[in-house]
């Protein structure tokens, strides 16, 4: 999947457009090309593609099922196809959907669409986005199924009430490319990257609790952690450069690395931002109000050191029909040590990260460690493809049982993290995703131009 998206990015945007996006030329508002480039960049910063493209689907043609506590929402086709997409939208229609959550036919959008965030976009940037979506995106004549869920109340009309509860960003004004660093950072974090959509906890009505901005929230098995500057609960010990490295490559050495939904956000969005914007974003995040955390009492990346286990070698070889159950040290030795090292140090270049001084292992919540083991890491950015195999139900490398994962995670957090979290097999079972529908057979070789691995997920 990542490969396909990588190809898509290079085709769609091209190194020239993104890599060398001249901010200055975006000033020339009457220049259609500049407006297009600006729109493309903004769409990347807004990470529209993440939700509006299904795995293996055409860019922006929708169809991705997004799990919410109320059921699955299916993302819409936002290509300029007039029947199935937004080709018939005027700038005014587009603006209403983007900033107010109103569809052209008057229906309310589900707030999975972060219009409360996009509400902060400037008029100029809305126009740039509109121009790019209308002229820079390939129309796709594919209809996606309607979402069938009962959101609070079961009709979209109840969204009117919800919208009154939810606090939207106030539209920014002027030319966003001329803002000073903190204002630009605020604009990027709120109106575009919509960090709060995942990292801010929501109340029972699923409204983001703004007094807990970026204080951490559950996300489909993963946990979007507290990224406020709290020294114990958040990332107060991260420098601006750490944050920039993380957002640019998905990895800040000795701190953390991105997988799951954040891996996708880095892959599709933040790794394509300019260094100047990344610094602005980082500077803004570093100065939001700090919030401590009920379950994190020491910086997540401050635990552990390289340790050697006493010799595990028994000299005993088990007959293949007489297998022993592996304990924590043996599970680590057989499944993790080959890459992460017997001492947990990872590789010298940290392509494989250390397991100590690692937020995912040090966290008081084991969610992201379990999810990483279940789903692996698969993140492609301009700085390369990072991959850790899955150890979940569809792995070809090794399928670990719930019991084995619980045993392994408890061992990891004792050895490299913040202690024994007494994770149980039942808890792992809940986090294990239901099996996907088997994929179709790989294409027959005759005439196949691009070899596709025989995918099965």
């Amino acid at each position, binding site marked *: 999947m990542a490969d396909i998206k990588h190809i898509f990015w290079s085709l769609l945007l091209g190194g020239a457009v993104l890599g060398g996006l001249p901010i200055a030329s975006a000033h020339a508002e009457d220049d259609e090309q500049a407006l297009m480039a600006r729109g493309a960049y903004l769409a990347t910063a807004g990470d529209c593609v993440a939700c509006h493209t299904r795995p293996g689907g055409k860019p922006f043609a929708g169809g991705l099922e997004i799990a919410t506590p109320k059921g699955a929402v299916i993302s819409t086709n936002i290509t300029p196809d007039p029947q199935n997409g937004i080709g018939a939208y005027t700038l005014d229609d587009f603006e209403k959907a983007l900033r107010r959550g109103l569809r052209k036919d008057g229906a309310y959008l589900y707030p999975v669409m972060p219009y409360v965030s996009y509400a902060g976009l400037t008029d100029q940037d809305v126009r740039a986005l509109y121009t790019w979506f209308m002229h820079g995106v390939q129309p796709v004549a594919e209809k996606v199924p309607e979402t069938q869920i009962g959101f609070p109340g079961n009709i979209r009309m109840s969204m009117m009430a919800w919208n009154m509860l939810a606090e939207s960003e106030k539209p920014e004004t002027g030319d966003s490319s001329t803002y000073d660093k903190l204002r630009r950072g605020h604009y990027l974090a709120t109106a575009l990257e919509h960090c709060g959509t995942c990292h801010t906890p929501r109340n029972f009505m699923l409204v983001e609790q703004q007094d807990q901005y970026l204080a951490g929230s559950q996300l489909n098995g993963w946990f979007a952690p507290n990224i406020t500057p709290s020294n114990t609960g958040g990332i107060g010990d991260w420098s601006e450069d750490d944050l920039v490295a993380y957002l640019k490559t998905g990895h800040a050495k000795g701190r953390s690395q991105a997988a799951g939904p954040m891996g996708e956000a880095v892959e599709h969005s933040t790794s394509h931002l300019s260094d100047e914007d990344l610094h602005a974003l980082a500077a803004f995040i570093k100065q939001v109000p700090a919030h401590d955390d009920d379950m994190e009492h020491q910086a997540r990346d401050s635990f552990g050191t390289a340790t050697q286990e006493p010799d*595990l*070698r*028994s*000299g*005993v*070889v*088990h*007959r*293949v*029909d007489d*297998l*022993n159950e*592996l304990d924590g040290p*043996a*599970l680590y*030795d*057989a*499944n993790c040590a*080959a*890459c992460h090292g017997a001492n947990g140090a990872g590789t010298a270049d940290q392509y494989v990260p250390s397991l100590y001084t690692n937020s995912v292992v040090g966290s008081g919540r084991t969610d992201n460690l379990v999810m990483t083991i279940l789903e*692996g890491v*698969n993140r492609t950015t301009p700085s390369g*493809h990072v*991959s*850790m*195999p*899955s150890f979940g139900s*569809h*792995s*070809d*490398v*090794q*399928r*670990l049982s719930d019991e084995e994962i619980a045993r392994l995670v408890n061992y990891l957090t004792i050895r490299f993290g913040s202690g024994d979290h007494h994770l149980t097999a039942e808890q792992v079972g809940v986090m294990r995703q239901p099996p996907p529908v*088997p994929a*179709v*057979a*790989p294409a*027959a*070789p*005759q005439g*196949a*131009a691009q*070899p*596709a*691995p*025989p*995918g*099965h*997920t």
Partner: protein
Amino acid sequence: MPSDQNLSADVVIVGSGVAGSSIANELVRAGLSVIVLEAGPRVDRQHFVENFRNLENKPSYQGPFPSTPWAPHPPNQMSPNKYLHTTGPDAEAYQQAYLRLMGGTTWHWAGCAWRYLPSDFELKTRYGQGRDWALTYDDLEPFYYQAEVMMGVCGPDPSVEDLGSPRRQPYPMEALPLSYAGEEFRKLITEKTPWRIVHEPQARNTRPYDGRPTCEGHNNCMPICPIGAMYNGSYSVYHAEAAGAQFIPNAVVYRIERDAANKKVTAVHYYDPDKGSHRVSGKYFVIAAHCIETAKLLLLSADEQSPDGVANSSGHVGRNMMDHTGVQVTFISGDKALWPGRGPLETNVIDNFRDGTWRNERGAYLVHMVDDNQVDFATQLAISKGYVGRELEEQIRYLASHTVRLFSHNEALPDPENRLTLSKTEKDALGIPHPQVYYKLPQYTVRSCDHTRSVFKQLIHLMHGTDEEWTPGYFPQDHPSGSTIMGVDPRDSVVDGHCRTHDHENLFIASSSVFSTVGTGNITLTVAAIALRVADTLKKELLHG
């Protein structure tokens, strides 16, 4: 363990290695029902990794896989073993190792994924030696590519390094980067010899592929890749299972049942570990149980209708046993340190001797520079030289970094006298006879090995080598083939060009046992390509009549 006696499928496959599992995957995804019977148990990677790490004799690549009483396999490869009994003048040269496990012997292999040369299929026509296959390179080419995509094969750009097997598509992945030892050896061959060295095509990831990671060069591909960067048959088992194929482990097939006319196979019978017998019926049957076990099963199924064994009207079942029996030498380079053992085991090959007009009198071969860790060899050598204390440590360091190991794959010829039979004295726990093989190296191969020795001696001289250690006699390469040989004439062959047995219209064989000649490249990719071609034939017959 399925308890019912009514197991049935469109296609019943015996053996879950690369051949059986990939056929199962293709057929089940085409909508056919498939049952695969595997004699050995199902084990996951982590247990093999732990067994390997606990193993004292690391070079023993059978070591981490101690077999079961009901599906024994050879316990090791380099000494007379208690399962595959060998006799004859070159008995030692045929001590093959293989695994009876879900996923098959590719649990341990070096991932070398060669296509055969077009000439390898026409040895008789071109050079007057051996036999021709009943298919051509062109027949197999699309399936070679399908197999390369399935396994994830990396290899050189054909426009830069042509390996002699014409390709319609590039390799699915870029070639492996060479280790320091590999680079240095490559330089030596290129600059100081008339020979050519090429990147070995490998079923090994040079980028994340198919949900599996990039090779990290752990250097223990044999006995077990610890991270799954190298292909093995268990992936095809998983893929086939995900699409609905049924795999039954610990199912030791012992009999192939036919109809009254002896034209069609009606069922196979298997023992579970307690010797409970089960019958599995089907429309088509594929025996994909490794060269040795496939011939063994056909012979074992002898009855009144077929007193010499199933599919054996020609009398050629079990005959024509071949391998890449070769030459091996280890020596200490007098030049600078190479530090072998920092990458995959086999990455560099001298390929000048894979084909030539001289093939009318001596066999072809290829030369591997083996890039394996040599601490074990160096330690034994240093101790044998009498070093102790600090000097011993220094010597181990010096010798391990200067050791060079070379071995060759030399082409055998199909000789009916080289024959697999059932042991009359040795039986396994289920009472099934062990296989035994009579082997006499063909003179064609002997001359090839003589030539190899002269090349190795030139290389040793060139590297100012000392402490030469030649493996006595000949070196078995675990590439057994020929036991159900392919041919157009039912009187002197067992299967036709589509791997269908001449005797039974719904019985196919997918194994190196069908090879008519053995060429020089490692056999697995050709086994996979032949298997995928069998799947293609079965799909056409079952789906389109």
